[in-house]
């Protein structure tokens, strides 16, 4: 797995740490599986012990001790404050505006933060049929703030999406393996790069003419505390 320079941490770890740092204590997070789950759980294990993890499987206030492999792992229900049905989760909790932050990933993103997790190529004659939107379309419009986590390549950061699975109105930040993008006047703009990454690397990894902020800061590398918390959470084989 790729690492940035010789920092002794992986790109995934840098992404998870940078996303976790943006979760304020007490935040109610709607969490999907993989990196978002890693980031949200890391936040809860470090600076945000009272952030609330909500998984779309219906578990509210889950406190997993290890990173779940699926959003439905039994430990999520065992450690939750309450478990509700999936229809209740989407109607009363997500649509009901009870969620502060929702994490999303995707196969493609455009400069406006619109995401594609549905199909590559034509919808009716797809080159690659992806799993689909799942909860994403209504997460993107139901939470207060959307955090996107996505590896940055010209094939994922595209001029035009093959399909718009979810809209970018509420995207506040995009954390990639290279840096940090935030919307300025509705267009994603590079505001930070990770240690060992040049602005030109990020520009080259972007399928559109990337807007660069006046002052691009360099991300703080993961602290020992963050890394050790992260590695107690990660299942064997990841990172």
């Amino acid at each position, binding site marked *: 797995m790729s690492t940035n320079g010789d920092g002794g941490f992986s790109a995934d770890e840098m992404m998870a740490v940078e996303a976790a740092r943006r979760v304020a204590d007490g935040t109610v997070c709607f969490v999907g*599986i*993989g990196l978002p789950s890693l980031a949200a759980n890391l936040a809860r294990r470090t600076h945000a012990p009272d952030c609330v993890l909500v998984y*779309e*499987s*219906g*578990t509210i206030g889950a406190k997993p001790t290890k990173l779940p*492999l*699926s*959003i*439905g*792992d*039994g430990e*999520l*229900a065992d450690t939750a404050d*309450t*478990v*509700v*049905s*999936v*229809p209740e*989760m*989407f*109607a009363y909790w*997500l*649509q009901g505006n009870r969620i502060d932050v929702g994490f999303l990933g995707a196969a493609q993103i455009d400069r406006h933060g*619109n995401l594609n997790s*549905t199909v590559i190529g034509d*919808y*009716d004659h*797809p*080159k*690659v*049929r*992806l*799993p*689909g*939107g*799942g*909860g*994403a*379309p*209504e997460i*993107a*419009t*139901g939470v207060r703030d959307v955090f996107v986590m996505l590896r940055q390549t010209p094939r994922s950061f595209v001029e035009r999406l093959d*399909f*718009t*699975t*979810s*809209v970018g109105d509420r995207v506040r930040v995009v954390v990639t393996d290279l840096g940090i993008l935030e919307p300025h006047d509705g267009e994603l703009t590079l505001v930070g790069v990770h240690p060992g990454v040049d602005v030109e690397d990020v520009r080259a990894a972007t399928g559109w003419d990337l807007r660069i902020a006046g002052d691009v800061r360099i991300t703080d590398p993961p602290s020992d505390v963050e890394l050790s918390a992260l590695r107690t959470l990660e299942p064997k084989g990841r990172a």
Partner: protein
Amino acid sequence: MIVPLRDAIRDLVRDGDTVALEGFTHLIPHAAGHEVARQGKRELTLVRMTPDVVYDQLIGMGCARKLLFSWGGNPGVGSLHRLRDAVEKGWPSALEIEEHSHAGMAAAYAAGAANLPFGVLRGYRGDLSAHTRVETVTCPFTGEELAAVPALRPDVAVVHAQQADLRGNVQLWGILGVQKETVLAASRAIVTVEEIVDELQPRPGAIVLPSWVIDAVSLAPGGAHPSYSHGYYDRDNDFYVAWDEISRDRDRFRAWMQRHVLDTADITEYHASLAAEVATA
């Protein structure tokens, strides 16, 4: 009421039916799905929010004409290769898809359970609305426009639960998913269970489905594998990873289904067959 799974599938699932084998990562009715494959049911419209391995198997075996779904992947692993092969290459036969969002399908099941013709939600922004059955309704009080999805009313609901009592009342707990709505929305309902007990002991977080909303209860211990039954056994995460390899190749997929499903009589033989393979590996 309490009948062998073979009889329940034979009598209640008909070729051409719309069938929802539901389960949201937990309590996925694999044993019932395998019996559908053994009996070679055809032309089914399969409905599920999160079709995963069991639907990959039914699609690969050519049981399905159409899939209605909102997320079709191998959770935590990647794609469903049999689903992709059917959608991208029409193998073993063309598969029509009707795609929704989770919120849309949840609202559609709830509408079906409530005997309403449509469900209402704030959603379906983006391109999907141009490719699926979603319409607009206007609030008669505020003038707001909202999305409407057609109610789901499957011919048959199939779910897995932890327990039934001797009269056929069912109790399930842990992650509840959309199982209650699926059973109440369907014309016929089949429930497989881990065990049959004299009397149900109420559990925190459990829901109970009374026997009079269910057509058949069948004993199928281990019937959720590779999914899990909360309080009985854990999710077989390694199997989901292994399935990625098994399902990539059409011949390997068919050989696997032949050995572990078609050539086994029931859930007990299925588990024995998997164990034998591990032993000889």
